């Protein structure tokens, strides 16, 4: 629990201090905050998770002058994840204290689990906040590249924040 709170604050400050202003390769943005919503424990139809996502998104929106965008983007990730986990994983593997990271799932399985969620979040942010007046194909390529680089960032954060000693202490 303690490492979960510490990780949240690290990810949150990375988002608002470093990555809020950073803009790579002419249009790629990093959203480390999504790390927290992909890896945390899963409870089916949890109102708490959805409210937390909306609330954290709302705070990010205030920092970002983008009222409504991050709150909806993060809520969308939590909502889709609510149905994605039972769909993607065989039901005998789902439990509320299971964690969904590459230590547990393996990199390949973690990629197929997390990439669609990152892609949805990035698509939402690009469509509503970042893009305008660019070709649709170029936009899709940008979203795909951004989602892939965010996946790499999540892996790095996971290896940095969830050390082998603390990874089982995550919940």
């Amino acid at each position, binding site marked *: 629990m303690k490492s979960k709170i510490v990780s949240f604050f690290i990810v949150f400050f990375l988002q608002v201090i470093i990555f809020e202003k950073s803009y790579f390769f002419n249009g790629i943005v990093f959203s480390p905050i999504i790390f927290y919503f992909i890896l945390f424990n899963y409870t089916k139809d949890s*109102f708490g998770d959805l409210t937390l996502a909306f609330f954290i998104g709302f705070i990010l929106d205030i920092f970002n002058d983008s009222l409504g965008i991050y709150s909806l983007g993060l*809520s969308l990730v939590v*909502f889709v994840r609510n149905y994605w986990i039972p769909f993607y994983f065989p039901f005998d593997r789902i439990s509320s204290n299971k964690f969904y990271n590459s230590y547990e799932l393996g990199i390949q399985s973690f990629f197929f689990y997390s990439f669609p969620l990152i892609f949805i979040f990035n698509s939402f942010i690009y469509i509503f906040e970042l893009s*305008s*007046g660019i070709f649709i194909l170029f936009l899709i390529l940008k979203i795909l590249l951004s989602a892939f680089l965010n996946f790499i960032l999540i892996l790095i954060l996971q290896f940095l924040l969830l050390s082998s000693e603390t990874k089982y202490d995550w919940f």
Partner: protein
Amino acid sequence: MQILIRILAKNKYDFYFFFLVVISFISIYNNNPYYNSSFFNSSNYVVGTFFQTRASIMSYFTLNQINNEIMKENFFLKKKLLQKNRSQYNYQDSINNSNYDSYNVINAKIINNSVYKRNNHFTINKGELDGVKVDQGVIGFNGVIGKIHSVSANFSVGHSLLSSKLMIPSSIGGSKIISSVSWLGVSPETLNVLYVPKHLNVNKGDTVFTSSFESIFPERIPISVVKKVEKNSNSNFLDIKSYPIENFYSIYNVYIVENKMKQEQKLLELNNEK
């Protein structure tokens, strides 16, 4: 009714999500001034203080660049002053002086800025207590930066030139024909100059200046430089692309300009419309 309650109870998670979606979309698309008020954006006290602390830490790493900019500005002003001392006071000077005398200037620092969004904003370390008001213009050393849209006691947030919500009345080169500069969101290096009639001779390298229309900026403040001119057969206007004169990736010191006569001008115009 019972069926409806049963459906609601069964899908309460989905309905709750839908409720959050509705709230978010209202926030995204609502133009209500309540949403633009200082609490819900980076001009609020907590976020503003946070950005100011971040900006003061970051500024230590860019001191060299800031010094160079100030040196450049000092050099430019010194040159202007010397030129002015040498020249005789003439009719043209009196016109220019009266034009700039009607403006108040407040110096400020940009503490947060974005360039990659559809509507880019900047946060300034001056607010209502320093005399900043909504709709005042913001200029940098080289030219136009944007317009203030939200003010709290100590901070303010503005739409930058790289915002689709901002359209600035302009004129190209020495001509008096009014055009508009706006950003279509393609690239931070490209601004569109709209409504320039085809008969006007516009060349690559011409400077686009502010016009006194809308009375936000003083006249003849540079906005952008023309980089491409095309004649479209389907339109009566030239298709002009320009690049902003200010480098939005690194803006630090800015000036907020207030037209002291704006209220009077607007009131008169409003009375005439009735």
